[in-house]
């Protein structure tokens, strides 16, 4: 009997294992036959989301409403799940029937790789009108024509200001331009005897909570990519303008002083948030901050305003950065119809959206829900609604490598603000080069 040689058997084992490895990823889960709709048999689905504590309770309440309206469907809610866990679960074939993420960065990957199913056939069958959502929302829920996600509320970034601190500095109105923000921020910043910052007018560090390039960029009219997907960070002069403005503010007290202030500022989503404790006079943040202030610092005398814009871009006043929570059906879902029913409920049912929006203090994504929500009459919420409805508001275009372009830019900004970039324009071109290389590695 002929015996297999040792090298040959080793190669055979390696090949078998490698084939096993590839077999794990073969199912794309794209089913074109979606039936006529409706769930007739008792079905249990899993709903993964990232919310926790107070916010998770709101989600749970709305899911209960859904179960009452759809008695055949039971929803097993998995709260506190981050994107990376969800990604691993979906790729391992786990039945994440409905996945919810607050990061629209994942849409490019999930749509193009079919990690989430194409919702187009369901949308068409059930005649869901996507025009109910603003263009910016439609933009961040789809990738290259594939609508693999639906929105569940939106997040909009504006300016929060401490009325008492502004009044003490002699101001009655929040800033409308970046030069006003810089001047007011500087005047409202207070130092102790050692030169340490004890109160910040505005913290120019990036990142500082939600003060990041993606949220500040729209105020300068900065664009990430052109129509063909080519990065524009090195060629759009708005980015350089933004960074020079930011660096000038940092240099007034030195980046080390700002970093020291940041170190003691308290965690962003805790009661120690520096804006909530009155250590920061003006801060960029999402509309959801209002709910945190109500829970953690109800006595804070604050106001909200539209984002200040670059002095040369006054036409942008009223616009800003918009993003939101997105939901999709995991490709391993065994009950996609029931999953779609939940997604449709959370994204299009007016009462559900209103309950979610009022509970979480997020922007309702449909016009009908916005009209019905109590938030529309809330003075603190109005600026965010205005930004949301502004046609010049923008989001970051999706890419197949998720947040990699933002990470690359953030790394550059780290170097820039600490004075390690000798030539800004050359450095920004280098950012584009790296983004292009990364996209090429991803096969884009």
């Amino acid at each position, binding site marked *: 009997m002929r015996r297999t040689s040792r090298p040959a058997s080793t190669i055979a084992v390696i090949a078998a294992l*490698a084939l096993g490895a590839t077999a794990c990823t073969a199912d794309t889960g794209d089913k074109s036959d979606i039936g006529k709709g409706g769930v007739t048999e008792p079905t249990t689905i899993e709903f993964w989301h990232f919310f926790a504590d107070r916010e998770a309770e709101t989600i749970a309440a709305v899911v209960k409403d859904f179960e009452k309206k759809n008695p055949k469907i039971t929803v097993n809610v998995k709260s506190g799940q981050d994107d990376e866990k969800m990604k691993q679960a979906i790729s391992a074939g786990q039945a994440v029937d409905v996945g919810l993420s607050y990061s629209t960065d994942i849409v490019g990957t999930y749509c193009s790789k079919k990690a989430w199913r194409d919702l187009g056939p369901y949308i068409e069958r059930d005649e869901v009108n996507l025009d109910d959502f603003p263009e910016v929302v439609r933009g961040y829920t789809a990738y290259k024509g594939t609508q693999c996600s639906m929105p569940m509320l939106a997040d909009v970034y504006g300016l929060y200001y401490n009325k008492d601190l502004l009044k003490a500095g002699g101001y009655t109105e929040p800033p409308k331009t970046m030069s006003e923000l810089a001047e007011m921020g500087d005047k409202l910043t207070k130092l102790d005897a050692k030169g340490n910052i004890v109160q910040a007018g505005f913290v120019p560090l990036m990142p500082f909570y939600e003060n990041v390039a993606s949220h500040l960029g729209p105020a300068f009219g900065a664009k990430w990519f052109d129509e063909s997907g080519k990065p524009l960070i090195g060629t759009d002069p708005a980015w350089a303008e933004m960074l020079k403005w930011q660096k000038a503010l940092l240099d007034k007290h030195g980046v080390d002083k700002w970093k020291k202030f940041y170190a003691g500022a308290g965690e962003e989503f805790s009661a120690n948030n520096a804006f909530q404790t009155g250590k920061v006079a003006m801060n960029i943040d999402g509309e959801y901050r209002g709910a945190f202030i109500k829970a953690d610092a109800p006595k804070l005398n604050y106001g909200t305003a539209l984002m200040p814009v670059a002095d040369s871009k006054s036409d942008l006043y009223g616009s800003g950065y918009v993003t939101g929570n997105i939901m999709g059906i995991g490709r391993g879902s065994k009950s996609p119809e029931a999953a779609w029913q939940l997604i449709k409920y959370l994204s299009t049912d007016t009462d559900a959206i209103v309950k979610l929006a009022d509970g979480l203090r997020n922007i309702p994504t449909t016009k009908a829900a916005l009209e019905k929500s109590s938030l529309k009459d809330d003075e603190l919420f109005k600026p965010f609604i205005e930004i949301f409805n502004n046609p010049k508001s923008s989001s970051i275009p999706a890419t197949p490598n998720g*947040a990699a372009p933002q990470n690359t830019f953030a790394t550059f900004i780290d170097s820039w603000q600490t004075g390690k970039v000798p030539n800004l324009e050359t450095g920004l071109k280098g950012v584009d080069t790296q983004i292009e290389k990364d996209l090429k590695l*991803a096969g884009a």
Partner: protein
Amino acid sequence: MTITATRGTRVDVPAALRKKRRRHRLVVLAFLAPWIAGFLMFFGYPFVATVYYSFTRYDLFTPPEFVGLLNYEFMVKDDPTVRIAVRNTLWLVALMVPAKILFALGLAQILTRLKSGVGFWRSVFYLPALAPPVAATIAFVFLFNPEYGVANAVLGVFGVDGPGWFTDPDWSKPSLTLLALWGAGDVMIILLAALLDVPRDLYDAADVDGAGPTQKFRFVTLPTISPVLGFAAITGVIQTLQYFTQAAVASGVASNRASTGKGGSDVLGFPEQSTLTYPLWLYVRGFGQNYLGYASALAMALLVVAFALTVLMLWRAPALMGGEGENS
């Protein structure tokens, strides 16, 4: 001819003996089976899959696409951050590992000299090694917070303006080293056992020869405990090449930024990528940015480096520590 004779001898083994040997082999195999299954499942398969994926473009969701050496080329030519991660990791290997061993050796030496309360102090020094790394790191970052931390408050009493510890890129790796020293009880305990195992006769002989404390340490203690020191160094280097948890938690907590929902990839390395170790960057590339094929190539490079360093240390360490050479 000899070979033929040997083979012939095997043929002549009685059937009963052959049966006994075969049964013996099967029994051995049965006892080994759980280990073999575990080895294939948790090492063999992942290893082969990682090798395979490292030559592919793979994002977890779509089937891997063979790209040859592209990932390895990208690592060398087109990923500047990997160089930062390598530098950070080598810094920790070069400074944290020796510092931890020396500190543990110092503690163990002190314990051998104590006249009373040895058990108590041994427990005190060992206890931090039992603390879960995540909890210990969070506590450390709070204690060393430059604004409200205890460490800087104590320094302030002496008129010293404390540094930024985990928020200053120049101090973040030394701060992680401090954390490692605090948890050096695991190394201390094996070094203590080795020190207590040094024959008293050798010290007595050294005393007779008029050796001082330094000479006794250099020519008696060190050669005797060198195998244990070598073990601590090799395992320390391998562990530090895989340094992940403490760096990830420290950067997340010190950054004050929410990582909820995104899995933390965007805060790893804070401040200014000074805590971005090689395994952290591998994780960011693999699970944060979906480059599983590239992350596999990074993992293979790490394996090769860890293997090479281990071989080098096994080859040279005994000689360096006063042993009998590379074969000892």
